[in-house]
């Protein structure tokens, strides 16, 4: 949008107003999201050893290489492909084969984003779409949760398995807290859940840490805080209601909040700007919908975890939520001052 005009030696720029610009750009936002996840990756590595870095790296490689191969020139710089790969990697089990993680990243970018037209055009969160694909294609690999090992450096599964071979390692497995809850009605100590010292996907276990990292993004206005607040409040209220009705059958609210992928999903997946509502009123509705679906799936569905499907389902509703929550323009009858306020008295 910039032209120049030459006046003697002087070269004057011609631009449309405004001539000032807020400092944040789309790549700034995206790379800040990536940067804010570094502590989460570190925690995953602390809990799950080198497997964590390998799996996350493979997922990022799948996403980034696909973007590079089929995306618009220079689109890697905006950082959105790296986020997709990173977030997908954080939702995978530690022992998954690297090629599966790679395929997930490639699918997420290819079919989750590029077929829609690239950045800003996709309906579904690409990382979750990648994960949904892996869940459908490799159900066993995606639900094998290795037990804690005594040695940190030991791989948590056959990460280097060749495609479509049976695992050569007989991994010792362990149930996740949600699995225990679902199939044995056993709860896990909430403190272990918050810290992340439990079985589960790589980056989903350290709930408190994810809250802090996402909080940073919220403070910088790089994510809409209304979405995680709405999701977590809804989950707390809904699960609290169930827990009050029958505390032997249903999980406690604290367990519901910090188990599975809820915190990561609420902070990082549901807040994906492209696939969440553009209005603030819509953000509240969107979050509440996710919260309700999560508890419904976890409690009465066939799966122990429902965050992924809850977010994907609500992603599909975003255009309708946007339409229903359009702002009321200045001066229109709907904006009349409410009686009793300063504005009505004036």
């Amino acid at each position, binding site marked *: 949008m910039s032209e120049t*005009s030459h006046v003697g030696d002087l070269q004057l720029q011609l631009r449309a*107003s405004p001539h*000032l*610009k807020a400092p944040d750009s789309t790549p700034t936002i995206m790379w800040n999201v990536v940067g804010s996840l570094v502590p989460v990756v570190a925690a995953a590595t602390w809990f799950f050893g080198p497997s964590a870095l390998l799996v996350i790296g493979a997922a990022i490689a799948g996403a980034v290489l696909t973007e590079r191969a089929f995306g618009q020139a220079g689109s890697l710089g905006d950082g959105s492909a790296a986020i997709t790969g990173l977030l997908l990697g954080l939702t995978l089990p530690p022992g998954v084969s690297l090629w599966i993680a790679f395929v997930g990243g490639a699918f997420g970018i290819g079919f989750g984003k590029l077929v829609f037209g690239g950045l800003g055009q996709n309906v579904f969160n690409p990382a979750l779409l990648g994960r949904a694909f892996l869940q459908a294609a490799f159900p066993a690999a995606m639900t094998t949760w290795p037990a804690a090992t005594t040695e940190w450096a030991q791989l948590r599964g056959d990460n280097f398995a060749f495609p479509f071979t049976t695992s050569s390692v007989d991994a010792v497995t362990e149930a996740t807290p949600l699995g225990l809850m679902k199939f044995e009605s056993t709860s896990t100590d909430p403190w272990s859940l918050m810290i992340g010292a439990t079985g589960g996907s790589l980056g989903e276990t350290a709930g408190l840490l994810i809250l802090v990292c996402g909080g940073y993004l919220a403070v910088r*206005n790089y994510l809409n805080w209304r979405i995680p607040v709405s999701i977590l409040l809804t989950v707390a209220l809904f699960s609290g209601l169930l827990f009050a009705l029958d505390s032997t059958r249903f999980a406690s609210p604290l367990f519901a909040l910090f188990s599975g992928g809820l915190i990561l999903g609420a902070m990082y997946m549901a807040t994906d700007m492209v696939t969440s509502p*553009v209005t603030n009123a819509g953000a509240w509705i969107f979050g509440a919908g996710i919260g309700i679906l999560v508890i419904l799936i976890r409690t009465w569905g066939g799966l122990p975890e429902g965050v992924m499907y809850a977010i994907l389902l609500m992603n599909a509703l975003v255009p309708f939520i946007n339409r229903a929550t359009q702002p009321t323009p200045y*001066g229109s009858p709907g904006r009349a001052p409410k009686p009793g306020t300063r504005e009505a008295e004036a």
Partner: protein
Amino acid sequence: MHARLSFRHGVHPPEHKELTAGVPVRRMPYPEEIVLPLRQHTGKPARPLVEPGDRVERGDKIGEADGFVSVPIHASSAGTVKEIGLWPHPDGSMAEAIRITVDTFSPQIPRPRIIPHWDGLTPDQVVKAVQRAGVVGLGGAAFPTHVKLLPPDDVAVDTLIVNGAECEPYLTTDHRVMTEYPERVQFGIRIMMHTLGVQRAIIGVEKNKPDAIEALRGTLPDDLDVAVQGLTVKYPQGYEKMLIHALTGRDVPPGKLPMHIGVVVQNVASLACIAEVFETGLPLIERVVTVTGPGLRKPSNLIVPVGAKIRDVLEFCGGLADEATEIVFGGPMMGGSQPDLDAPIIKSTTGIVVLTRKESRPRRTYPCIKCGHCLDACPVFLNPSLLGILAQAGRFEEMEEADLATCMLCGCCSYVCPSNIPLSQMFALAKAGAQRRKQQAA
């Protein structure tokens, strides 16, 4: 002070008013040539009254108002009419203008004139006097002031709102007028209240100008209900609709004017100008202009004769710094880039801001990521994200359904957009297109 006096949404661009906020107004010497476009106001351009070769004195009428929504043009300097023809206009176009070669040795004394006493005049007579003096809104819109002074009979105006918000970054024009000439502002308010027959006036000033607020409070009249209100510092606080909302809580319905909700808004500099008309009899031939920006050697507040060329004004302010890249007429949020240093200062020029590469560096544009920051910034509660997508798809009729007409082109959406989408620029084009379609249909 009661509840926070402001409006919802808006943005906080860096103000940079410190460059000139404390710099007293100086008078710029007369340049060698003055160029006076016949179109310096909203409405019909003036009709020229002089011929090349004519000798004019400072203050002489050289262009006649063409109809009610129009004002005359006056010579801002003694001299000789050189030419009447097309000349670069600050809006970027070529426009008909009267060029006057300044008489270097003239004492610049205007012809003797009768100064009517405002008190003895009927509202109609005041309106005529204001129109004759060529007074327009000096806040940037340049709407002929007298038009706002004659509300139709079915409209009851109860409040005069005085706009001293000056929310544009860098500009300190109104700031200096309020601080240095508070009595003149108060006198202008008195004339205006008399003419409109209103009992109440509120002066709104952003709180970043404490000296202006103090000066105005110190000169409040005893016999009139005039109040000074400090306002939250936020862009676009000085927009008519935002200001009315902040001070009265009233909103202007679509397609209506502020007078339909009982309010008339005047800029402080316009009021000082009206006061001058009734003090000296001189028409609007000079104005206070802030000449500033990181690309200028000596940022200043100047009294500039209308028609002085950018080139001469910049030279008087020490000239451009080496890193200057862009010259903006008006504030940086709403103003226009100048391609030509020969364009003159006109009645509506609030300032000249010289920017450097740091501010004007081209940035890459990305697709809309639906972050919603523009919705949080829009002071009139539109969905700029949606409007921008519709504009890019060429769906202009749908833009009108999405309340494009409410958009004031304040630029808040473009300012915050992280994808650097030129939203307000697209909206300006779409609005112009809508206007054309309406005219064709009629």
